[in-house]
């Protein structure tokens, strides 16, 4: 048994040979953050009285939902055979929307702990994250977690893991993040098995930015991993992509609270504060060097996170538009994956078209805007980005259905994904049926073990981002898991479906769909609206159309009675209050032509069940 380190190695004076940089990667909910808790505790960096579950999930939204959204790097000491080592541990998110966070973290490490829930086995994001780790040439330590669970099957899944990575089942470590069992052995093994970082201490400094976060008090905090040379306080640093220089106001390590240091040397992970206000000036993937002795060549960067789904965000109350604008600006400081631009909707007024990594990202962003900035928002039906080529060869990127060109279209291309689905083999038929109905092309199928298969499909992004995962879960009785990544695009037979109320087009309800699904969308939306829009004093036809062709229609009959039959002495106060309530209600109406549409109707019509909270965990 290893004691916790008596003297922790000091930053800027730590021999790379005693540094181990690793991240914890896993499928969502397999227990990364809980394992990280035990490490914080065992190494003594968090006092027992300060300990709380998923200590590193610090955002309110992370704590409420019980998921990690942002990676967190922590420097922890650990002693093996009398030598105090310095470990940099990074807890990563498991949800597919935040895969880009994982890839950034991997670039700061030499090793990865591949954690697998011993009651669930390997799942889709286990494979995806393992693949990313191998691409980064990381040393992988497979670990089974939650062995305290009665439903755990450590033997079975150790065999599955060994089969996947190579090695022997008995070499797979078994731990419980909950009880702490096996965690000390795991720390020892990290020290023994993971390679120490290598770099040239005398070369010009080069540090890789793997995260950049805006903090109201400290400004932008930039997280780096030093590869060569050394960074010191009050030095002038330079961003290699832009050649912009900044004064280094503070440099330090997170342990897990920020601790200023005398600098950072080869292999070390820590943070920099320069006083810049925008994370974009301290871009993830960029290389930091010093102004006086700049490096010649930057480290390889990462690709920018690319938005995958787009939705219009509108304040319910039009006068809140400036608040929404400022709020988005602030959120963007912290979330390099967020992109937006202003747009106007005839039905909803002024708002923004915002690009997200996926539906969870959308939902979380929306929730933060509503909560932290006290906004009431309508978000339009999410859609993917299309590339439309006109007959005159002009190419237009369409992220908002109402901008879909009406003129002569030569070709429309839609984004595609490579999807990996893992499930018990009895569900293969159901999964294939589902993927085929979503225009998927099968890529291949492998058995991970006797009864578990990995199925690969190429699918249009638009077919999987919305309700696909929920349907997959229900078709596989909860056992199926899904991972996907962007995989080019394809030409497709797409059309724009418009929705009209009393002949008046409502841009917020327009959608781009595959031609075969246009009718279903039209029927669904007109039906929903018929239920949601109250009867008016006149008849209101609701139509769905492709161009001038009507593909579905519903009718809201005129209201014939709207009067309280009895109104006597005792009813007067009650009736007056009812009237006042109705008048309040009228303020929340949006006018579409002469039709009064309650804002709730917009919200309900535009929300699909898959954006509801309880289903957000994937």
């Amino acid at each position: 048994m290893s004691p916790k380190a008596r003297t922790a190695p000091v930053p800027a004076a730590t021999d790379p040979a005693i540094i181990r940089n690793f991240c914890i990667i896993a499928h969502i909910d397999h227990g990364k953050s809980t394992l990280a808790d035990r490490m914080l505790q065992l190494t003594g960096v968090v006092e027992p009285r300060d300990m709380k579950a998923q200590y590193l999930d610090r955002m309110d939204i992370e704590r409420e939902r019980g998921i990690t959204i942002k990676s967190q790097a922590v420097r922890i000491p650990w002693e093996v055979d009398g030598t105090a080592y310095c470990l940099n541990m990074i807890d990563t998110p498991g949800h597919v929307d935040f895969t880009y966070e994982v890839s950034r973290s991997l670039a700061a490490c030499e090793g990865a702990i591949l954690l697998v829930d011993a009651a669930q086995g390997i799942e889709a994001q286990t494979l995806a994250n393992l693949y990313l780790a191998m691409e980064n040439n990381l040393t992988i330590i497979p670990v089974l977690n939650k062995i305290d669970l009665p439903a755990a099957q450590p033997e079975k899944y150790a065999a599955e893991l060994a089969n996947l990575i190579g090695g022997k089942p008995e070499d797979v470590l078994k731990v419980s993040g909950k009880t702490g069992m096996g965690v000390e052995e795991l720390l020892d093994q990290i020290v023994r098995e993971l390679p120490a970082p290598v770099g040239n201490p005398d070369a010009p400094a080069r540090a890789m930015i793997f995260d950049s976060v805006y903090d109201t008090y400290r400004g932008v905090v930039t997280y780096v991993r030093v590869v060569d040379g050394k960074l010191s306080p009050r030095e002038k640093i330079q961003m290699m992509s832009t050649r912009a220089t900044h004064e280094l106001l503070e440099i330090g390590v997170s342990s897990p609270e920020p601790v200023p240091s005398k600098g950072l040397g080869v292999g070390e992970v820590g943070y920099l504060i320069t006083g810049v206000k925008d994370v974009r000036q301290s871009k993830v993937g960029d290389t930091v060097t010093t102004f006086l002795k700049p490096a010649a060549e930057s480290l390889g960067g990462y690709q920018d996170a690319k938005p995958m789904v787009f939705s219009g965000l509108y304040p319910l109350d039009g006068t809140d538009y400036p608040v929404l604008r400022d709020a988005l600006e602030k959120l963007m400081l912290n979330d390099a994956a967020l992109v937006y631009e202003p747009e106007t909707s005839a039905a909803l007024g002024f708002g923004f078209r915002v690009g997200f990594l996926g539906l969870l990202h959308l939902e979380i962003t929306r929730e933060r805007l509503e909560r932290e900035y006290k906004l009431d928002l309508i978000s339009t039906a999410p859609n993917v980005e299309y590339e439309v080529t006109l007959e005159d060869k002009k190419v237009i990127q369409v992220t908002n259905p109402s901008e879909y060109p009406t003129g002569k279209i030569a070709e429309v291309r839609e984004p595609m994904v490579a999807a990996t689905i893992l499930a018990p083999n009895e569900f293969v038929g159901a999964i294939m049926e589902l993927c085929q109905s979503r225009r998927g092309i099968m890529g291949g199928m492998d058995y991970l073990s006797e009864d578990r298969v990995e199925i690969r499909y190429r699918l249009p992004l638009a077919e999987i981002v919305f309700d696909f995962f929920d349907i997959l879960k229900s078709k596989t009785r909860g056992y199926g898991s899904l991972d996907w990544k962007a995989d080019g695009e394809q030409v497709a037979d797409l059309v724009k479906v418009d929705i009209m109320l009393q002949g008046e087009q409502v841009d917020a309800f327009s959608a781009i769909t595959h031609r075969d699904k246009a009718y279903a969308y039209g029927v669904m939306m007109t039906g929903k609206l018929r239920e949601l829009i109250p009867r008016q004093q006149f008849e209101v036809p609701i139509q769905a159309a492709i161009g001038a062709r009507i593909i579905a229609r519903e009718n809201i009959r005129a209201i014939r009675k709207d009067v309280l039959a009895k109104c006597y002495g005792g009813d007067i106060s009650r009736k007056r209050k009812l009237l006042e309530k109705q008048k309040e209600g009228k303020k929340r109406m949006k006018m579409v032509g002469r039709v009064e549409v309650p804002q709730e109707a917009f919200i309900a019509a535009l929300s699909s069940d898959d954006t509801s909270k309880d289903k957000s965990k994937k």
Partner: protein
Amino acid sequence: MTPPSTLPLGDPAPADGLLPAQAADGAAGRRFSLYAHIPFCAVRCGYCDFNTYTATELGGGASQAAYAATAVKEITFAARALDLSGVPARPMGTVFFGGGTPTLLPAGDLTAILAAAVDQWGLAADAEVTTEANPDSVTADSLRELADGGFTRVSFGMQSAVPHVLKVLDRTHNPQRVPQAVAWAREAGLNVSVDLIYGTPGESMADWETSVRAALSYEPDHISAYSLIVEEGTKLAAQIRRGQVPDIDDDDHAAKYELADALFAEAGLHWYEVSNWARTPADACRHNLAYWRGDDWWGVGPGAHSHVGGVRWWNVKHPTAYAGRLEQGLSPAAGRETLDPATRDVERIMLGSRLAEGLAVETLTPAGRAAVAGLIAAELVDPRAAFAGTLVLTLKGRLLGDAVTRALLD
């Protein structure tokens, strides 16, 4: 007519029953009415939300026998409180006994309550004195006794002439009883009204026509016809929620209203309020008009509402609590609201627009006046009356009366 059983939220009412100063302003020039609530019924009808109790519901607490004496106590209290508040005593222009089932009490109790009020305030020469009555709770003798004691008018809860409809409504009377009761009332010299309910689950258009024609065949002076309201918390609401009884339907209500209005008009009864029709203008229920015109009235009884000069208040609901308050010489009021001029104007438009006599267009706000053209275009307001300066609802407008009110108050 009677207060709904849920009381509004308002300000606390003082125990001495004194009114804010605004109640006395100009009171000498205003009319005064009395409402007396009788909170007892033989059985509770499944649709009914009124503040009324059967003997079993009361469980022996507040006794029916002692009720008249309690009501008289409130009358004495009322006269004193008005006097101390600077509101001059005015003879009662109208009196209305509502329920519950007032005629469940002996006729002598009702006339005693009336007599106590007359003692306090006097009765106008041409006063209208009405009681509500269930058809099976009256006899020729009891009606004569009421007439002798000063009553001028009786309003029978007929509801329907069709047995299966009466059954859904939980009404216990035999439909044959209604013409009988009407005839007795006439013999006693009383003016007669009947109440009808339309749109009961399971009522066909033909059923409704049968009821309307039956009511007309008794040649009443006045008819009230209400679309069935499904009040929260009633047995009917629960039956509908559980799917045991089909839900009511606004379109069905509209069609039945149109049918009734046509048949009433053909028989010489004309609408003077959205749900009320009278043979001649003199047959209109003046007590109800007092409510709609914003007159002063004191409401006696548990849960009863009152209004004096823009002050509205309502009594505690339960008969036992009510009697207890009066026993201690305290005001039985549970809460009240003092309306500011703007709110009084909202009420004036809300209530006045329901009347055939209409609202003077010049009394509307500029925004309300601007809405009139649109209401004419939508065929909700009579154009000719509007040209002459009065806003009067069309038939379509009566059915969409609340929408008209909202438009006028925008």
